[in-house]
């Protein structure tokens, strides 16, 4: 979008130090071209609406005050005015013209955002919606992770956009990170696409925006925007198989002997399930359960023990493990850095 017709430059001083993790995902605080373009367009619409509101509401208020029935008016009826072709024609044609202008502006932005072709060097990511978590796949990089989308920062002078393919394995979900772009649905049996080019490193929060069942509320999403070199290091780390820490051998054996492996993958082990999040680098992630809990040892243990206590209705079953088994399994999971 560097030479494109839409999108504005960031105002100087927006996010000088990057964005803190805890933040409001306001649509008026954009850092990526689609969201910037939408804000630009929204200012046009909001300005127009404000003018119309002030004029019409002003006339209405004036009329209500000026023509209220006053004591002394008696029961005399006011002059009856049946209509006026000229006036009515005017307030038909003028709004029609406004609408036409608004439509042309809108159409330009629709094509500007949706019509962006993917450059050959763009980062490609596939996001797959699941009840109730996000699978994030980097098909060209051989990385699979969950609930955190890591992308490189995009310098408007040297754009590095990320093109996202959206799919769903079950019901409809919607990918919405307001500061980066408008939302787009993830629909089973249909493939959608969108793109972002965040210009400021930081973490941007969002969540599923289409009702998708019991735990729609805890289907949170984070997009972490890295400087280029940091992103390359993240990729390299994610591409390694899971570490096999001898200290956690018992937990590893236990993990592989349980039905955990029916749903979860840990690369470098026989665990290759696909129904749950890939756990190869579980401990590199900030949260578990799609944002329902922070990824701490205590929360992880509690989660494995009784997922439904943290996220009622979650599809992961409680495995009814003994305390020692739970400790041993948690120890293993903590090694999956």
């Amino acid at each position, binding site marked *: 979008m560097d030479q494109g017709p839409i999108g504005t430059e960031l105002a100087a001083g927006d996010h000088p130090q990057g964005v803190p993790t*805890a933040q409001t995902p306001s*649509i008026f605080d954009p850092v990526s071209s689609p969201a910037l373009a939408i804000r630009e367009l929204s200012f046009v619409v909001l300005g127009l609406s404000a003018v119309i509101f002030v004029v019409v509401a002003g006339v209405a208020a004036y009329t209500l005050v000026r023509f209220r029935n006053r004591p002394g008016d008696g029961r005399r009826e006011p002059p*009856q005015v049946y209509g006026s072709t000229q006036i009515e024609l005017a307030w038909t044609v003028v709004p029609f013209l406004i609408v036409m202008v608004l439509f042309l502006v*809108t159409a330009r932005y*629709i094509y500007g955002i949706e019509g962006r072709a993917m450059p050959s060097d763009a980062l490609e990511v596939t996001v797959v919606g699941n009840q109730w978590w996000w699978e994030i796949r980097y098909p060209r990089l051989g990385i699979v992770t969950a609930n955190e989308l890591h992308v490189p920062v995009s310098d408007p002078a040297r754009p590095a956009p990320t093109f996202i393919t959206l799919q769903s394995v079950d019901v409809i979900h919607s990918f*919405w990170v307001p500061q980066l772009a408008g939302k787009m649905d993830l629909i089973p*049996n249909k493939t959608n696409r969108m793109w972002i080019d965040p210009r400021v490193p930081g973490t941007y929060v969002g969540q599923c925006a289409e009702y998708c069942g019991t735990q729609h509320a805890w289907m949170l999403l984070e997009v972490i925007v890295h400087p280029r070199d940091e992103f390359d290091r993240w990729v390299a780390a994610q591409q390694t198989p899971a570490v096999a820490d001898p200290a956690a051998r018992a937990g590893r054996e236990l993990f592989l002997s349980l039905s955990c492996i029916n749903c979860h993958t840990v690369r470098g082990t026989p665990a290759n399930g696909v129904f749950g999040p890939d756990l190869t680098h579980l401990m590199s992630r900030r949260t578990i359960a799609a944002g329902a809990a922070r990824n701490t040892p205590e929360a992880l243990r509690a989660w494995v023990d009784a997922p439904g206590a943290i996220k009622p209705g979650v599809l992961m079953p409680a495995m009814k493990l003994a305390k020692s088994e739970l400790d041993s399994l948690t120890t293993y999971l903590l090694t999956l850095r």
Partner: protein
Amino acid sequence: MSVLSPTLMSPEAAARRPWLEHAHDWVVTVDHKRLGIMYVVSGLVFFVVAGIEATLMRLQLAWPGLHIVPPETFNRLFTMHGTSMVFLVGIPIVFGFGNYLVPLMIGARDLAFPRLNAFGFWMFLFAGLLLHWSFIGGEGLSGSGSAPAVGWFAYAPLTSRAFTPGNATDYWNLAVFIAGVGTIGTAINIVATTLTMRGPGMTLGRMPIFVWTMVTVSAMTLFILPPLSAAQIMLLLDRFLGAHFFDTQAGGSAVMWQHFFWFFGHPEVYVLMLPGFGFVSEIIPVFSRKVIFGYATLVAATVSIGGVALSTWAHHMFVVGMGTGLNAVFALSTMLIAVPTGIKIFNWLATMYGGRIRFRTPMLFCCAFLFQFLCAGLTGVMLSVAPFDWQLSDSYFVVAHFHFVLIGGLLFAIFAAIYYWFPKVTGRMLSERLGRWHFWLLVVGFNLTFLTMHGQGVLGMPRRIYTYPADRGWEMWNLVTTLGVPLQIVAVLIFAVNVAVSLRRGERAGDDPWDAWTLEWATSSPPPEYNFETIPVTTSRRPLWDMKHPDDPDGPHE
């Protein structure tokens, strides 16, 4: 001047009859007025139930991380709230008013098919009871009860058996289907009545605007409800016979359901709103003491809204990836609706301009309607701007928008209508003092709740979440939203007290308490079963104006 008629039985004799006989009269009635009353009263009862559901949701969302209702319950609450408000509150109340008023306004003795009318009402009522029975019997005969939790537009494939086992979703599907059958019957009835049973002199061009809105929405209903019913039958086949219309695992299309649903669902908003416009178009002239400004333009605007509304449905689907072409087309068709809608607002303002406005309770509700509906219209234009909608769709901004339409617009218009026609229906006036309390509390409560919701929306809060993280900066907005609720509850309670007290002790209304101009005010309050002793002859759009002002009748000005 009224065409008074003796009632069949003196009030004293009527009071002595056992209540069972009264009840029997109501159950077997085919009188359009009694059915109209039953529609509106049942609608108000469901309104209270759906309001309680909304209150529970707002308590749960007042602050992040509350545990007032569990997630699954919350999802059932918003599903039942939305389904009830549209199918069991909005439709029955506007069609109830249509039932009561259309024959009276056009000088007819009843609707064209009185028994079809009764059939439609009972279909609606039992559909409502069936839907609410799901709280007890939702999972099936052996399981525990539960209401549907698929949202009021029940998107596929969440409605497939894989994702909603049990029968909760079937309760939604069948109840809405049955309610639809009743509505189609009533729609046919209203179209037939207005086309064939108008009194002497009541040409189409003299029908009150409210009647025009009822004909328009009844005709629209005949276009939009059958596709929804068809889609519901497809869903039924999917769920019980293994068809694959919407079953994405077997090649079905989730997007197709959305097309079917919104082809009904969007025009449905206008089916609800146009009669609201009709109420306002009847009430504003009477309390401004002026003839409606631009009758022909208003009728044209009504009919063209009805037409254009059939081509805007996919603006609910800007985020499903329809492609640039369809996005642009539906943005345009949606924006075009703003033109006839604007005409209506301008014509109402022109009607008030130069009048002598009397701020009785019905007029107060109309005034708030004007401002709030203006807001709703402008946020509607914002949502028609497809890229802006990619941000706002499925957020609290949308929730705020459609509550401004349906509460700030329609509900306020309905309350205006109730205060305006209550004297005709019951023979007694509602209290002005309680009416003012009702009005002001509702205005403040409504705006506290729904004006703030625009805020959560632009700050990134999606709809239909049972709780939210504490670090998003949404908590104060949500707290204020919830604080508006008690004010609205008190307002509705005051209204209930007003009705209860006025029914017994309200001031006697007489035939024509507002000094109005349409035919329903030419008969007694309440009207006799046969409406008019002799059918009045209509000489212009304001037959009672002509009677009251024989020196300056309307006819020459039309």
